[in-house]
């Protein structure tokens, strides 16, 4: 395997990690706000809080890891994306900051504020929407080189149906992933009402998810035939993902083995995410930047990979401990003790 291939695989895996745990987090915030506004917060809030509180900072680090890693492995991305993304990413950052900080303010300072909860819930949907625009831009067609400097055409970006379908998909995926996860978590906590409610939400969002995903593949055909072909090349990966999706919804529908449903959910998204990534290969920004011409020098590449292996040896056990204490610990999940500082 070449350096650039190892690099992009590691980064893509971390981005996948971020997409999954951030989706759970963003969606949970939305459901929490919704239940506060419809006066059903007694059903959901405590379950959601118990999961989110110890892990919120970890979610953010996945994102940091991704953007630091991509500048490390592919320094030219800093130039291309840095120049064009100033406005869109700044907006995401502001939303992310307000949401992150106010989560801490609310849960440790002044609890149960309706305004905070609402703002928090809405920001949680706007963030994936605004971040997903970066993926759209990477598809090409919205960036032009003007005198050697990349420039983003906002008009084309915001009038393109592809942009909006990706935005819709990202929001629906967030709502679906977190609903399935919280169904399982609430079920584990022995909280029947919450589990049933979340199961209902998961089923509600499953159909829009399927429609949005298929819709995007069709959009591609009109937007960029080359990219469409690449997607068709890996159709079988998308097909596996689709089958897994059907099994997950079936299990939810039958109220059976939620644990299995969660595993299938993650696998389903992993297949779709990696199939998309493979179809994107080798472009980082179509058609200007590929992983081959932007990769860093050999010495730095090796150094980064060594650090990554050592770092993973440290992190995997620590993450295991975190999940063992707060996700797989029956007493904690059921809220048997209150050990918050």
């Amino acid at each position, binding site marked *: 395997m070449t350096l650039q291939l190892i690099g992009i695989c590691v980064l893509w895996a971390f981005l996948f990690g971020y997409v999954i745990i951030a989706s759970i987090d963003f969606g949970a915030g939305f459901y929490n706000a919704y239940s506060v506004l419809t006066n059903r917060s007694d059903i959901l809030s405590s379950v959601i809080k118990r999961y989110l509180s110890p892990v919120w900072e970890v979610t953010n680090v996945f994102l940091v890891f991704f953007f630091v890693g991509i500048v490390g492995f592919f320094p030219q991305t800093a130039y291309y994306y840095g120049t064009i993304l100033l406005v869109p990413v700044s907006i995401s950052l502001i939303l992310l*900051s307000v949401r992150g900080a106010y989560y801490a303010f609310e849960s440790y300072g002044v609890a149960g504020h309706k305004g905070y909860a609402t703002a928090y819930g809405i920001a949680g949907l706007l963030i994936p929407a605004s971040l997903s625009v970066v993926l759209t831009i990477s598809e090409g067609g919205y960036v032009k080189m003007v005198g050697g400097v990349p420039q983003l055409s906002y008009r084309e970006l915001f009038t393109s149906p592809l942009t909006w379908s990706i935005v819709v998909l990202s929001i629906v995926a967030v709502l679906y992933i977190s609903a399935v996860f919280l169904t399982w978590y609430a079920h584990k906590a022995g909280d029947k009402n919450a589990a049933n409610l979340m199961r209902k939400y998961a089923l509600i969002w499953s159909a829009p998810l399927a429609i949005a995903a298929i819709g995007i593949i069709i959009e591609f055909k009109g937007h960029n035939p080359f990219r469409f072909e690449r997607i068709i090349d890996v159709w079988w990966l998308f097909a596996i993902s689709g089958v897994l999706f059907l099994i997950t919804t079936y299990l939810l529908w039958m109220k059976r083995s939620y644990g299995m449903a969660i595993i299938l959910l993650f696998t389903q998204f992993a297949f779709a995410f990696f199939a998309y990534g493979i179809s994107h290969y080798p472009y980082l920004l179509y058609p200007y930047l590929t992983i081959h011409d932007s990769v860093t020098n050999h010495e730095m590449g090796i150094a980064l990979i060594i650090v990554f292996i050592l770092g993973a040896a440290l992190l995997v056990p620590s993450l295991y401990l975190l999940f063992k204490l707060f996700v797989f610990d029956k007493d904690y999940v059921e809220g048997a003790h209150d050990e918050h500082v």
Partner: protein
Amino acid sequence: MNESAVFWSRILTEVTLSFHIIYATLGVGVPILIMIAHWVGIKNNDEHYILMARRWARGFVITVAVGVVTGTVMGLQLSLLWPNFMQVAGQLIALPLFLETFAFFFEAIFLGIYLYTWDRFENQKKHLLLLIPVAIGASMSAMFITILNAFMNAPQGFDMVDGQLINIQPLVAMFNPAMPTKVAHVLVTAYMTCAFILASIAAYKLMRGSNHIYHKKALYLLMKLGFIFTVATVIIGDFSGKYLAEYQPEKLAAAEWHFETSENAPLVLFGVLDDGEIKYAIEIPYILSVLAHSNPTAEVIGLDQFPVEEHPPYYIHYFFDVMVMIGMFMLFVSAIYLLAIWRKWSFIRSKWFRFIVILGGPLSVIAIETGWWLAEVGRQPWVLRGYMTTAEGATTSNHVELMLILFSILYFILAVGSIVTLHRMFKNNPIVKEIAKRSSKGDV
């Protein structure tokens, strides 16, 4: 090149870093202090110190949250505002930046665990163990980011041939000459600042009439620690000066208004520049030569050795003076306090002395800010000293002003939010109430 984009990028970077550094400093120093208090509590079986650790940890959650989000902003802004710089720096110095993310990761995981497992373990020591990775992770992340900054001041570990980078050696780039003093000074000033900030709070409570032994214990512990860290700060600060004299003489010369290369160089404090003449300044003979070379007669290189367009802005002189004065002042205050405790002098319980201790926290933060401004503005016009100017590194986007406005609003909201939350948190749960609650549970 886009002049206004360069200007606004500089301002936005200044604003973001000046804001992040306050919360980052708390993030580096406070875990160490929590650890010490928790350990003293366990060792002496004294519930007061354990409560100290617990209350500081509670406040820490709020400051960490702001530190994390502003750090994320900073990390992305480096690429957004300085894309040309990051493209080059990415090839040379990505290693410490990448290492830093692992340090964060490690810190974040164990912080979550530490905060949510109070009283979960029979043995308190086990719980304390969980804090060690947090403290190590925080200090390591400060170390790695400071290595990046040191590299910008003293780049090495590569060759530039016809604009191409060759012979890249990531480890040589990391262990550059600026690194030892910079890392040591940044870490120890963070510990010092946090000790004095927490001491300010204890002194404030005492001045406002609380006579609780809890605050007295806290103040004594923190002043002791503050004294030790300040001694280290001043010593390492002196080494930083020697580093500058050798590797970045133009920064030291601008900071000292040392225009002509000369022997027996005096230290110039404050004053104003009038047409190149220094007026109203306090001059301490020989001290600049001592600071630069530990020798009162040594020759110190002046600004005359550098072309005018490479002179850093002269106003960094004031930043240097303010930082050094604050360091000396805090050394004096904490030494007097300890002496007074030992000799049983009573004036340290007077209002005016407590007021001085209260000033210590904000003053230390000012020293951190002026220290960074000195270091960063003093590097101008370079972003990568000797290789790339700040203007060459900047973005060409036309929207930077607008982003500056948006981010300024964000920081304002975060500052107000964090202060209000901290205030409420401790007002609603004063120490007397918490001790009463715990003793009724039979814990004390």
